[in-house]
């Protein structure tokens, strides 16, 4: 999906001369056209991510709107204080564009797994978080983020999954049993696993949030109530991810619904050759999800064995 976002960025930089691209020496065969076309608005700060975020804030001070790019781990974890103090506190509308969501970098080991990033960002007031599930949404994610004029984090997964009619912040695929069937709630790469699970078990309904924070309560709450039980499927720790957001929504709104997590439980030191390997280990692939849903169905609404 990176390709779609960068194509979008190059087009947007032609329309808006305040856009300024900053990379932490990442994006080979991706960033070069920006440098060539807009040399005055291209900056490679090198392997120095803390500085990169401060520099982005400074570019805002000078009237620019930076889009800051590197691997999500280095963008979020290394720079959390800079994001908090220099971006969020100043309400600078910086776009943080982080790649390698979830286990995209599977065999590279846990330092390169991104399963604890946006939960940290979610803790900062005033930040939006996008996690595109498809190329269709990725094509417009940057435009949406820029239109909001707020600081934001776009969590970009590898691959180029196409999902029809998925270009909105939220989309819903009802199951064959309507609201009587279970609901899977997901985002990013795992949206596709949920849709595969729906193919295997058509009674499943699937709700996908391309914009994961803040949660659009007007869409999510009625579906939770209608289905009564849901599993939140994510490649991020549940206690700070979408599961936590949905639990909070249920409590705040007093919803009559039960929600269960399908998410990694910790870091994994054992190599997996692909994101799919980790999905299987953590029970996040389509086959496991169908089993989880089956367990929900056997004990009825509101409970899970």
């Amino acid at each position: 999906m990176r390709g779609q976002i960068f194509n979008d960025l190059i087009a947007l930089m032609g329309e808006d001369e305040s856009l300024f691209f900053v990379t932490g020496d990442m994006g080979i065969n991706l960033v070069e056209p920006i440098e060539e076309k807009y040399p005055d608005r291209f900056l490679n700060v090198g392997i120095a991510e803390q500085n990169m975020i401060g520099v982005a804030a400074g570019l805002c001070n000078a009237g620019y709107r930076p889009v800051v790019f590197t691997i999500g781990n280095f963008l979020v974890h290394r720079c959390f204080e800079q994001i908090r103090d220099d971006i969020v506190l100043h309400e600078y509308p910086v776009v943080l564009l982080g790649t390698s969501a979830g286990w995209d970098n599977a065999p590279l080991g846990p330092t390169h797994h991104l399963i604890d990033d946006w939960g940290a960002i979610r803790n900062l007031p005033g930040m939006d978080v996008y996690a595109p599930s498809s190329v269709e949404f990725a094509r417009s994610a940057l435009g949406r983020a820029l239109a909001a004029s707020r600081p934001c984090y776009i969590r970009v997964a590898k691959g180029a999954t196409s999902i029809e009619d998925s270009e909105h912040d939220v989309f819903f695929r009802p199951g064959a049993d309507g609201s009587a069937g279970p609901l899977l709630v997901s985002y990013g790469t795992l949206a596709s696993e949920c849709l595969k699970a729906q193919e295997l078990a058509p009674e499943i309904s699937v709700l996908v949030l391309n914009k994961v924070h803040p949660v659009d309560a007007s869409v999510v709450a009625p579906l939770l109530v209608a289905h009564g039980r849901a599993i939140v499927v994510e490649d991020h720790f549940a206690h700070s991810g979408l599961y936590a957001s949905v639990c909070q929504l249920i409590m705040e709104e007093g919803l009559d619904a039960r929600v269960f997590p399908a998410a990694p439980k910790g870091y994994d030191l054992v190599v997996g050759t692909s994101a799919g390997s980790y999905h299987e280990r953590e029970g996040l692939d389509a086959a496991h999800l169908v089993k989880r849903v089956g367990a929900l169905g056997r004990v009825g609404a509101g409970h899970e064995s």
Partner: protein
Amino acid sequence: MTVAATRDTARDDGRDSLQAPGLTRGGTPYPDPSAVRRTILGMLYRAKASHLGTSMSLVEILVAAYGACDIAAIASGLPSRDRVFVSKGHGACATYATMHHYGLLSEAVIGTYHQDGSALAGHVSHAVPGIEHSTGALGHGLPVAVGTAIGLQSSGRTDALVFCALGDGEIQEGSIWEALMLARHRGLARLIPIVDNNQISSIRATSDVIDMRPLRKRFEGFGFVVHQVDGHDVAALAAAISEIETGQVASVIIADTIKGKGVPFAEGQPVWHYRSLDDDSYATALKALVEDPVPTLAAGAGS
């Protein structure tokens, strides 16, 4: 706002004429550093606030930096304005006091320092008009100043000066050296980092914590031209600023200072980073500043 719309806007602050010796950019005498110190003392005493030591070491650095700026452009927030970043955010009291003496903050406003409902917290805050960036956690201000300088360069506003006051303890932060590498690589000749080299870190002598002496060599090793001056000599600081401004190379000023300068019982004492003034210590300090003021430029600080 798009950058294109303002890129061709000519500077309107008279940058083409050099600053007259002994005078600020605006052609006025520099504020008397001792008067700034007395303002600081009053602010800290009323607020029962800490950071006396750093407030006193920073005075001439800020007097010289603001003196090289177009104050009216800062007040009106012009895109082409000069900028002063205070990376050592605990220098807030000194910053607000200096801004007051340059007419950027009223007496009523600085009187609210550390008070309920005030924007003037104990660390520099952009909620205060004229402040570029909030700082407090160390190692943040210089990267932002570097980004600003790059942005000004990219948008063709190449004359604006970007000052950044740093602590000699603060420069233990790795982000400072990340920013310096980029500044040198980009040849940011209008960026003027000034190290308040008061030789005391947080709880003890900087050299006892991380010995970086000779500091000059550290910056030279990163490719900077270093101006090491008496940091309590406004004229010497102004001369270094002027030399950097007329040159085209990445430069750093190391301002050798004394933490607590002008308050004899606090000079060189780490505890005055934290301690607040009581009635007796305030009276003693004020007496010292009145009877034995730090020499002003006019009094012969030298040129």
